[in-house]
C-alpha cells in the first residue's frame, strides 16, 4: 500500500470488522449463560461444554471448507452458473494466513487477489465465522438436557460450516442466485441465520423428542423452569449487546458505489452485503426501534414474564432485520412487535399440537420470527432493486416467500431432520434414559451425590443423638 487514502480505507475496513468480531463474541457468551441458566442444576456443565466446544469445531471446519463454499457456491452451482473459482478462500491458500499483499507465491492467485484480500481475508472470515457460531448456538439451546454432545457437535458443524454458508452464498452475497433470480433481500439475516437455524432445530427436535416429564400423558405441556432466571436474562442482554456487532458486520463500511450506479464520479457510502446503499445511522435507529417493538409487545403478550419478554425483544429485532437497512424506524418498531406475536403464539401452538420440546423457544424466536421477517420485507420493499445490477430481479412478496421457504425448510429443517434421523438410527442422538435421569453432569454429580448421602446420614445420626440426650 503506497497510497495513504487507499491504506486508510483498507486498514479502517480491517479494524472495523475486527471490532465487529469482538462484539459478536458476546453473543456466544450470552448464549452460554442463557442455556446454562435455562437448564436444571444436574445438567449445567454439560450444557456449558456442549455450547463452548462448538467454537473450535465450527471454527476449524469453517476454515477447512466453509469460507470456500461461500464464494464457490453462489451460482448454486448449476442454477445461475457453475462453480466459482475462489483461490483466496481454500484452506491451503497463502491468503488464509499472514500476508503483505505482494506478488503471489502459489499458482491460481493473481496480484489483484493478493492486493484485495491480504489484509481483509482474516477479518471477513472471522465475521462470517461468528455468524456460524450463532447459527449453531441457536440450535444448541433448543436441544439442551438430553442430546449427546458428540451428536450435537456433528449437527453444529453441519449448520455452522455448511448449511448457513450455502444459504449465504445463495441469498446473502452480491451475486447469489437467489438475489439474481428471486430478488431476495435479507440485509441483517432474518432468514439466512435465524430462519435456517430455527428450521434446523425443529428438524432435530422431532427426532430427539421431549425431556422426560415435559408432557403429561395426555400431551399437556409442563413448564420446566430455568434453574437461574437471572442468568438467563443477563445472557439475553449480552446477546442484545453482541447483536450490535452482528448488525454492523453485515455492512461494508466504506466503498465507492458511484460507478456501479452509473455515475461519472465516485460516491463513497456504507452498503449492505448486496452493495446497495444504507448507513450505520439508519440501522442504529432501526435496531433499537425493532427491539423496543418486540419488548413492548413481548411484555404484554407474556404478561410480564421476564424470559419471554427478553426473548421477544430479540424476536422483534430478528423480525425486522431483513429490511432494517431501508425501513423507517417506526415501521421497524411495528414489524418488531408483530414478530413478537408470531413467535409467542407459534411456540405454544406447535408445543401443544405436536409435543415439540423446544427448551428455550429457539425455533420460535429465531425460526418463526425470521421467516416472518423475510416475508414482511417482500411486502414492505416491493419493487425495490435487490442489487446495483439492473438486470437482477427486484424485491417481491413471492420472491421473499420463496426465499423464506428455502431458508427455513430446504436448507434448515430438511438437513436437520435427515442428519438427526441418521444419528438416531445409529443410537448416537440422545443420552440413555438413566443418564438423563441422573443428570448429564453425572460424572461430577456422582461425587456430590455420594457426599450428600453421607452428610444426610451423619446429620440424621447427630439429630437422633441430640433427641436421645
Amino acid at each position: 500500500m503506497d497510497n495513504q487514502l487507499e491504506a486508510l480505507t483498507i486498514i479502517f475496513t480491517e479494524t472495523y470488522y475486527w471490532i465487529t468480531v469482538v462484539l459478536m463474541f458476546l453473543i456466544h457468551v450470552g448464549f452460554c449463560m442463557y442455556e446454562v441458566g435455562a437448564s436444571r442444576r444436574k445438567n449445567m456443565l454439560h450444557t456449558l461444554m456442549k455450547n463452548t466446544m462448538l467454537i473450535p469445531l465450527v471454527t476449524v471446519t469453517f476454515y477447512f471448507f466453509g469460507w470456500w463454499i461461500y464464494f464457490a457456491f453462489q451460482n448454486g452451482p448449476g442454477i445461475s452458473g457453475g462453480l466459482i473459482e475462489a483461490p483466496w478462500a481454500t484452506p491451503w491458500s497463502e491468503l488464509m494466513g499472514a500476508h503483505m499483499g505482494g506478488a503471489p507465491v502459489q499458482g491460481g492467485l493473481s496480484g489483484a487477489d493478493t492486493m484485495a484480500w491480504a489484509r481483509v481475508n482474516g477479518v471477513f472470515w472471522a465475521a462470517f465465522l461468528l455468524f456460524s457460531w450463532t447459527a449453531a448456538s441457536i440450535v444448541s439451546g433448543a436441544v439442551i438436557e438430553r442430546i449427546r454432545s458428540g451428536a450435537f457437535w456433528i449437527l453444529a458443524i453441519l449448520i455452522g460450516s455448511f448449511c448457513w454458508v450455502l444459504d449465504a452464498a445463495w441469498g446473502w452475497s452480491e451475486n447469489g442466485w437467489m438475489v439474481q433470480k428471486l430478488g431476495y433481500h435479507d440485509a441483517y439475516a432474518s432468514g439466512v441465520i435465524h430462519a435456517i437455524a430455527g428450521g434446523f432445530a425443529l428438524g432435530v427436535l422431532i427426532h430427539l423428542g421431549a425431556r422426560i416429564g415435559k408432557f403429561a400423558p395426555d400431551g399437556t405441556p409442563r413448564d420446566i423452569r430455568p434453574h437461574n432466571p437471572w442468568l438467563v436474562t443477563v445472557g439475553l442482554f449480552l446477546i442484545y449487546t453482541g447483536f450490535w456487532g452482528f448488525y454492523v458486520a453485515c455492512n461494508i463500511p466504506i466503498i465507492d458505489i458511484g460507478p456501479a450506479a452509473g455515475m461519472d464520479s465516485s460516491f463513497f457510502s456504507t452498503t449492505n452485503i448486496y452493495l446497495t446503499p444504507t448507513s450505520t445511522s439508519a440501522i442504529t435507529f432501526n435496531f433499537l426501534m425493532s427491539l423496543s417493538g418486540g419488548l413492548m409487545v413481548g411484555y404484554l403478550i407474556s404478561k410480564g414474564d421476564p424470559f419471554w419478554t427478553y426473548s421477544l425483544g430479540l424476536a422483534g429485532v430478528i423480525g425486522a432485520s431483513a429490511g432494517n437497512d431501508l425501513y423507517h424506524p417506526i415501521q421497524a418498531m411495528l414489524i418488531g412487535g408483530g414478530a413478537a406475536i408470531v413467535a409467542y403464539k407459534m411456540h405454544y401452538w406447535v408445543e401443544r399440537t405436536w409435543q415439540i420440546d423446544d427448551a428455550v423457544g429457539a425455533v420460535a424466536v429465531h425460526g418463526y420470527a425470521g421467516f416472518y421477517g423475510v416475508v414482511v420485507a417482500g411486502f414492505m420493499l416491493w419493487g425495490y432493486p435487490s442489487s446495483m445490477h439492473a438486470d437482477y430481479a427486484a424485491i417481491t412478496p413471492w420472491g421473499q416467500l420463496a426465499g423464506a421457504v428455502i431458508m427455513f425448510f430446504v436448507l434448515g429443517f430438511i438437513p436437520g431432520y435427515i442428519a438427526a434421523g441418521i444419528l438416531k438410527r445409529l443410537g448416537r442422538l440422545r443420552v440413555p434414559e438413566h443418564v438423563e435421569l441422573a443428570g448429564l453432569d453425572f460424572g461430577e454429580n456422582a461425587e456430590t451425590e455420594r457426599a450428600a448421602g453421607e452428610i444426610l446420614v451423619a446429620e440424621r445420626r447427630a439429630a437422633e443423638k441430640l433427641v436421645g440426650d
Partner: protein
Amino acid sequence: MSTGITTWNTNLLDIGPLYPFVGSEMLLVSAAIAVWLIWHFLQARAEAREAAELKPDPLHAEEMLQALEKENQRT
C-alpha cells in the same frame, strides 16, 4: 538457514506470505483435518464409555445404603 523472511530491508511491496515454511500448506491442512477427525472419534468413544459405566440408579439408592452401613459401623 531461514524458515521464511530473511530481511525487512527490502521493497515491502514485494512481500507476500509472512508465515514460515511457505509451501507446506497442503501438508498442514491434511494434518489438521486428521486431528479434527481423530478428535471426534476419541470424543465419541469416551462419551459412550462414560454412559455405559453409569449404573441405571438415578436415586443413588446403593450409595445411600453404603453410606448408612459406614455410619452404622462408626457408631
